[in-house]
């Protein structure tokens, strides 16, 4: 293929960029995939099944790095690729409103480190304005996306059960896992307080599938998967795309400008900075697909300024950067006295098999709009994280640690955030990155509806923890920090009207017909559901539109 000219330029190699590259290369198009981080060697760079004592700091982030990035958690391995602060790639926030932007720079993107929960939005989620008057409706309905949900589920393999729950339509599932003892009790508690539960739908192969081995339940997913048994772009989308011979991948390529033809207004390609050699390059394509993740994508669109598009490309509506949303997280935990003094078993499995979905659809008496869900887990983990809440020291303390081992249960709630004109991102006029590219400035806070829902979630935790008879219960006083969900959504929302939206329902920019945005940017509402499955279903639908466009039809 020509060195610098391709059918399609894809910016970003994660869930959406990887999927578009996968689909288009297999359809015969030539694709140039640009990733702002390094590649990794499957054989050498992953610490599969390593033990903490095999790392200098026992698998944790080295303390000096931790001090520099106080929010950074997780393993020393994932911390190499996940970061929040960076001298070279700074970002800024509104005064006093720190937003913790979890970023990833590596081939495969953040979906290499994700929670793997895959559930469908329901019909109300697509029509929130019609449902309660707030926000805007999506330009598509559940029925439009249902076939694409199914195709993505079949492609990636999702385990779960059909539940017929009003919060989420059923999909196509590999066998779900039966819960361990902790989650059996959690389910009973959820039933007792009348909120119910469903088996978590997760992108884990519970049997051999499409040439990939079944999950082996080591539960060290944060280190990557030797067998590719949980879905991620690095293992499952990029290798088949490369195998077509149609894809060229360029790494350490920080794309900062989408170039345009001043006569037609169409995109001609992208400029990128080679971060290793500090050199500027250009590649050209018939289509440009932006899939960098919501905030990176907003920065790229806003930064792609030209005489034709002085406020950023695809931004005649002024909506790029607007309607920024995430999920508000509220966490709690405690110990189940019913499970004291057990002999440990291997029960970590896929991390969690139980979700308490939103059961308030149709209710008008709650005092807030929309809803939330609670993800629940508990098992005999490798580390006794319950030791911190037990009192004392000495032999009795050691005995207590053993007696309570395997009793801990943790709860993680995601609350829907409404689109709000006060929540937006923009280019910082003063701060630039190491290559002179303007940094992103994030303006986000939780507002009235979120705070009402947070209080409701805390009361639900109290009720649930009481039903479960939890001891040493940590009932949350409030939400986690801004950015905790790592579910950035909005900033280039889709819509039928070019005056109030950035792209159409295929992710195609209203202003620039050969420019597509396919990541979480294009969501019209955040919903409370983990977004990756929906991002992928939308990207799959968009990739069909791109094929039509390449044939001269769209």
């Amino acid at each position, binding site marked *: 293929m020509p060195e610098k000219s391709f059918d399609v330029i894809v910016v970003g190699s994660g869930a959406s960029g990887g999927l578009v590259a996968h689909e288009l290369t297999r359809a015969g198009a030539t694709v140039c995939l640009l990733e702002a981080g390094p590649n990794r060697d499957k054989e050498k760079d992953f610490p599969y099944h390593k033990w903490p004592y095999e790392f200098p700091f026992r698998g944790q982030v080295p303390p000096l790095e931790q001090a520099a990035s106080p929010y950074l958690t997780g393993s020393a391995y994932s911390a190499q690729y996940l970061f929040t602060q960076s001298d070279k790639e700074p970002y800024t926030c509104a005064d006093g409103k720190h937003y913790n932007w979890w970023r990833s720079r590596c081939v495969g993107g953040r979906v290499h480190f994700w929670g793997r929960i895959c559930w469908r939005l329901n019909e109300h989620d697509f029509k929130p304005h019609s449902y309660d008057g707030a926000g805007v409706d999506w330009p598509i309905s559940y029925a439009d996306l249902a076939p694409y949900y199914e195709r993505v589920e079949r492609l990636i393999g999702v385990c779960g059960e059909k539940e017929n729950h009003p919060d989420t339509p059923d999909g196509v599932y590999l066998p779900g896992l039966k819960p361990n003892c902790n989650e059996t009790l959690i389910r009973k508690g959820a039933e007792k307080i009348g909120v119910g539960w469903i088996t978590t739908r997760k992108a884990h192969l519970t049997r051999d599938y499409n040439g990939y081995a079944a999950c082996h339940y080591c539960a060290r997913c944060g280190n990557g998967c030797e067998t590719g048994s949980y879905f991620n772009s690095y293992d499952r989308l990029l290798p088949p795309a490369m195998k077509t011979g149609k894809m060229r991948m360029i790494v350490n390529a920080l794309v900062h400008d989408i170039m345009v033809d001043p006569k037609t207004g169409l995109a001609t390609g992208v400029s990128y900075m080679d971060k290793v050699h500090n050199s500027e390059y250009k590649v050209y394509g018939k289509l440009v697909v932006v899939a960098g993740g919501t905030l990176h994508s907003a920065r790229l669109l806003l930064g792609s300024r030209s005489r034709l598009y002085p406020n950023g490309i695809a931004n005649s509506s002024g909506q790029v950067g607007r309607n920024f949303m995430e999920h508000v997280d509220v966490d709690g935990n405690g110990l189940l006295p*019913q499970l004291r003094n057990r002999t440990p078993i291997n029960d970590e499995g896929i991390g969690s098999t139980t979700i308490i979905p939103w059961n308030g659809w149709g209710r008008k008496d709650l005092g807030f709009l929309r809803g939330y869900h609670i993800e629940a887990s508990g098992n*005999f983990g490798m580390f006794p994280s319950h030791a911190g809440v037990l009192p004392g*020291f000495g032999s009795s303390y050691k005995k207590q640690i053993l007696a309570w081992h395997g009793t801990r249960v943790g709860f993680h709630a995601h609350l829907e955030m409404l689109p709000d004109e006060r929540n937006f991102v923009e280019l910082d006029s003063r701060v630039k990155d190491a290559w002179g590219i303007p940094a992103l400035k994030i303006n986000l806070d939780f507002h009235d509806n979120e705070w009402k829902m947070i209080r409701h979630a805390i009361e639900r935790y109290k009720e649930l923890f009481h039903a479960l008879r939890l001891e040493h219960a940590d009932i949350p006083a409030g939400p986690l920090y801004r950015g905790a969900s790592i579910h950035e959504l909005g900033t280039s929302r889709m819509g039928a009207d070019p005056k109030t939206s950035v792209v159409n329902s295929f992710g195609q920019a209203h202003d620039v017909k050969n420019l597509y945005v396919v990541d979480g940017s294009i969501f019209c509402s955040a919903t409370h559901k983990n977004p990756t499955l929906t991002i992928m279903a939308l990207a799959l639908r968009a990739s069909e539109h791109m094929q039509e466009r390449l044939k001269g039809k769209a």
Partner: protein
Amino acid sequence: MGWVAGSAFVADQALADHIHKHLAVEAQLPRQPQFFPEQAWKTVFRLTDLILPSDGTPGARDVAVTEFLDYYLANSTDAAKASFRQGLDWLDATAQAKFGKAFVDLAEDQQTALLTLISSPANRDPGDLQGKQFFSTLRQMTVFAFYTSKIGIQSLGFKGNTFVAEFPGSCTHQHEL
């Protein structure tokens, strides 16, 4: 290290051999102290031994917790180092004031009494606040160092991080709330 050869904890010889082999690996951990001066090293060794004693099952001293904490703190921020030093100073000053000796030189019941004082949630004496914070940090570090070691993970009975064909953790009981 008497517990390895003959204690009730090690039920079978294979496991004993396994742990022995690992001890040889962890025995390489001790190196020239990078952070703790000699007196501090002795104090931390004693403190971590009191927090997680070797009492028939493995404890802090069996997995070189002091060595790890020395390494960890040597690679920590100046603020973390200063805070730890001040904690040790508080402990020795309090030991001197109460019993007339440095902490390591106290009798075991005196050491235990002092730790009980600063580990008790009921103790609201503002004069003990620094000691309480130090104990809390030290206990957390000790637990981390011990339970991320091979012997610590084994002592917890951890069964995971391995390949299994079927998920073996499903509940088969009739649990009641």
